[in-house]
């Protein structure tokens, strides 16, 4: 996803000289070509995310379009108040790029995990939140973000994410993409869990369960209609995200179901409310947190039997 991001940004930066890439001293083996092509549209801010965010606000006041880049916790938490006051309060045209969604930096330990960012950012007015589900959605998200004259957070994985879409979908911000139709249950997946959602739906198909799979790439504004529609068309809804079960996609879906008096089987699949003690790579961390394909299938089947 990082590569899809930088390639897209390169394409845009060539046409739009106001685009600037600011990094918190990250980007080794990712940004070299961009820097070579557009040295004036790049600043390595050093390891100072608060300053990076404030400077981005200043640049945006002067009509630049800064993209600020770092690992999820550093570009959303260290500088949270700058995002709130400098960027969202002033509704400035700054794009926040977080890499390392969920356990993308699994073995680095919890300081580097991105598990609470959606929760803390979803409450900020004026902010659009996009979690692309694969490299193709990444490219489309970055292109759409430029069209929005205001703050956007784009939550990326890291590297090597599988491609889910076989062709370029019609991508609009705030509108979930139906990856496949199904009549029994709906899986609403976001970001780095989209591909897992696809694998889970294949497994379930083998067990005779037809899955409607939605890529909910935009968390804010949230596509309530897609949830209401899914509740009508299928008998159960499962939200799937590489994020705490508190505050993220699962919470957004719950809000829609509750406020629309929809009584359906529903379960949030995500990371439970704990700091994981185990150490391991992304796949391992997902597994110990119940987010492997096998455990998701198991939880879904169990929920359906209870229904």
């Amino acid at each position: 996803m990082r590569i899809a991001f930088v390639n897209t940004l390169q394409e845009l930066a060539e046409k739009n000289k106001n685009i600037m890439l600011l990094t918190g001293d990250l980007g080794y083996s990712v940004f070299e070509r961009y820097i070579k092509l557009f040295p004036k549209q790049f600043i390595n801010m050093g390891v100072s995310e608060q300053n990076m965010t404030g400077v981005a606000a200043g640049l945006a006041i002067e009509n630049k379009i800064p993209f600020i880049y770092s690992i999820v916790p550093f570009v959303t938490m260290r500088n949270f108040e700058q995002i709130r006051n400098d960027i969202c309060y002033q509704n400035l045209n700054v794009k926040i790029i977080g890499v390392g969604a969920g356990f993308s930096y699994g073995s680095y330990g919890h300081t580097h995990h991105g598990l609470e960012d959606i929760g803390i950012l979803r409450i900020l007015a004026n902010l659009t939140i996009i979690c692309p589900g694969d490299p193709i959605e990444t490219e489309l998200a970055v292109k759409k973000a430029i069209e929005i004259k205001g703050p956007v957070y784009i939550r990326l994985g890291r590297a090597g994410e599988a491609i889910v879409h076989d062709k370029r979908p019609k991508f609009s911000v705030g509108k979930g993409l139906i990856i496949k139709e199904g009549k029994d249950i709906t899986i609403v997946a976001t970001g780095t869990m989209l591909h897992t959602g696809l694998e889970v739906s294949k497994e379930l198909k083998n067990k005779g369960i037809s899955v409607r799979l939605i890529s909910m790439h935009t968390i804010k504004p949230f596509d309530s209609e897609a949830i209401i529609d899914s509740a009508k068309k299928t008998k159960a809804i499962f939200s799937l995200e590489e994020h705490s079960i508190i505050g993220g996609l699962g919470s957004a879906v719950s809000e829609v179901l509750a406020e629309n008096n929809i009584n359906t089987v529903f379960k949030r699949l995500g990371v439970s409310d704990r700091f994981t003690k185990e150490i391991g790579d992304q796949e391992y961390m997902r597994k110990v947190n119940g987010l492997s394909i096998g455990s998701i299938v198991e939880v879904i089947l169990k929920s359906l039997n209870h229904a």
Partner: protein
Amino acid sequence: MLSKKRIEFLNKSAKEVRKNIIQMSTRAKSAHTGGALSCVEILVSLYFEIMNVDPKNPYDENRDRLVFSKAHDAKALYAVLAERGYSNKRILDGYEMNGGKLPGHSTRHCMPGVEVSAGSLGHGLAMAVGIAYAGKIDSKKHKVFCIISDGECDEGSTWEAILFAGHHKLDNLVAIVDYNKLQGFGYTKDVLDLEPFSQKWKSFGWETVEVDGHNFSELIKILNKIPIKINKPTVVIANTIKGLGGVSTHIDKISSQYKPPTKEEAEEVIRRLDSE
């Protein structure tokens, strides 16, 4: 050199600004009066003598910019902007009042001329740096001024911005510290000593000057020389007195940060200012 007449005019403007600050404080029973009073001469110097601005065209792209980072003292900014003609003075009546237009901490465009929203300490300088950096990219000639408080220099984010501006040689940037030496809950020397203050900035690549922040001749002489050194941002450490010109019992006292003048105190201050 400023003519005697011009100095008289600036003194008179400062007096009007102080009267409005006192009235706003009393009307809204608001805090942060001392820090508003300590930066009056700084703001009057900038808006009446130094900055290239046009109140009739407040967002001209070639204007000099002011980022008022110590936004808790916003009523000083509002009063100066009104005095300079950015807005009718009646807008000041709504300061911190229900349904008014002017919040306790200045917000971008809440009145013409207010460039950024601030209020949480340690945010303004970074934004000023971004504005100055953009000016450099676009080869613009305007300057960017940023007024910060001494208390804000406790914030790590302020020093991140100082480090960055020095490294990038932003000589179109001027930080002015309203160094009244009193912060939220004590004297800076007792809370977190900033000294040797000037040396700290210098070691981060800035050109530093110290002035009497209530002396128009000194302030204007220095501010006219900016950039003092090519390729270096400038910091003007303005030695000031918190609460100066306000209620006499609050001058240089922490109470000036919190206690609004009573109606009687306000009347007395205004009488005194009028008779000076």
